[in-house]
């Protein structure tokens, strides 16, 4: 592997960038997913409409396109928005890191909306009625009754979405973020070993996704532990 000498540190920092994008996108996706699912299940027509529009747009548009729109469009929109409040501001930029993380978070959030909605619907209505009969408050019902049971149902799909986020991070090299794919491109322009370099990238991704898969398997085991005795 002496061919890659000198590039390992670049791959390492590239991997750090990927993991940072992953964490931020994951947080955004979970928040958007929970909000979206709650909105879709709410009684308000307006909220349902907004959530519906959100999932249609972000599940329907190609991911690469959303990413480019965010990167090139957001700076202009943000500037315009901030100037409304503070006209002295000339220019606000959205760095590629945040453009990428937010775009991926919103896209996967749209998928999570559907996953969470399905999972919330899978929780038996009787459970909620029983909780009400015990005079639990709304947030208590969410925290102790609906969420833990929804979580168990959502987990398998949630794992899929985590893998999607991880793999989507490869897209951010297109907006100039120096993650591992970009490192491979840079190295390739000098050492001309495309197969070796792209295989290295593939193996790094595979290593990370394997860790994610095992974590999800462990979470599933934990979420289902109350069922184990019944089998």
């Amino acid at each position: 592997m002496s061919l890659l000498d000198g590039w390992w540190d670049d791959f390492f920092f590239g991997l750090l960038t990927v993991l940072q994008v992953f964490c931020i996108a994951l947080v955004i996706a979970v928040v958007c997913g929970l909000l979206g699912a709650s909105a879709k299940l709410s009684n308000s027509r307006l909220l349902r409409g907004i959530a519906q529009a959100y999932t249609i747009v972000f599940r329907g548009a190609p991911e690469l396109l959303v990413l480019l729109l965010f990167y090139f469009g957001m700076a202009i929109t943000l500037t315009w928005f901030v100037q409304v409040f503070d006209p002295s501001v000339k220019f606000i930029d959205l760095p590629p890191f945040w453009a990428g993380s937010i775009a991926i978070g919103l896209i996967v959030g749209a998928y999570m909306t559907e996953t969470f909605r399905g999972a919330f619907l899978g929780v038996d209505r009787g459970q909620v009625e029983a909780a009400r009969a015990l005079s639990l408050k709304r947030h208590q019902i969410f925290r102790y009754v609906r969420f833990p049971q929804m979580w168990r149902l959502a987990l398998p799909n949630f794992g899929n979405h985590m893998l999607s986020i991880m793999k989507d991070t490869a897209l951010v090299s297109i907006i100039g973020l120096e993650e591992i794919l970009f490192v491979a491109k840079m190295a390739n322009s000098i050492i001309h070993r495309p197969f070796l370099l792209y295989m290295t990238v593939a193996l790094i991704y595979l290593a990370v996704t394997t860790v994610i898969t095992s974590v999800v398997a462990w979470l599933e085991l934990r979420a289902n532990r109350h069922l184990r005795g019944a089998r």
Partner: protein
Amino acid sequence: MKFMIGLLSAAIVGLAGTMPAHAETLRVGMECTYAPFNYRTPEGEMAGYDVDVAKGIAERIGVDLEYVCQEWDGMLPALLASKFDLIVASMSITEERKQKIDFSIPYRVSLGRILGAKDAGLKLFDDAGKPNPEAFNGLRFGVERASTYAKWVEAKLPGAEIVLYDGAQPMLLDLQNGRIDIAITNPMKAYLDFLSKENGAGFEFVSPPIDEVEYFGPGVGVGLRKGNDELLAKIDKALEDMIKDGSLEKYSSKYFPFSIQPSGWKGVGE
């Protein structure tokens, strides 16, 4: 969870690091993957002819530089969206691009040459150096997207089957693998990266240098947003000085065994 929090805080610190730079810093956009013009060494240093030119300009007008890596396709939109202030990325000065941005005076020649397999017996140009459009019919022709070469090929050789690439690297790889029959690109780069290497042993230039000013313009220049006339004048002045005192010639001799200046262009790979 602690790990996650650690990463999150690292991300926030990282964001702080990319906050808009102060006034005396110019952000320079380039591909960072276009050796030997602009690339990054394994040590993490930016290097190449474009980088040397950018550094030379910065030194002469007294500013700091910050490099922004940007894919070729998005180079103009990114400049217009203020993702950086200058393009120093081997971009040819053309009329079409001049409608959107301003250019400095040229700092090297801009031309293309077509590569093909030695044993394919390609006879694409007549003795006067004019392309014979018929000869291109049905040939799979590799071209870099959004490049001056693409404009020329589309206009001159409608019979060729154009295959678009995001960069010279994947295009030359496909040429080598036989996915395309011929490819047009920068002859300096093609010679250094390909023809002079083992991979390119079976290939040669199958065209004379193509430098029609109408398509390729007067050369490669520094690009900047319109309305920065003061900065443009400073850059032009710096480039003129660098041509006069031989700095550009010196930079190019670091990478090329031949001159790439408009005055001293001799051709390569003959």
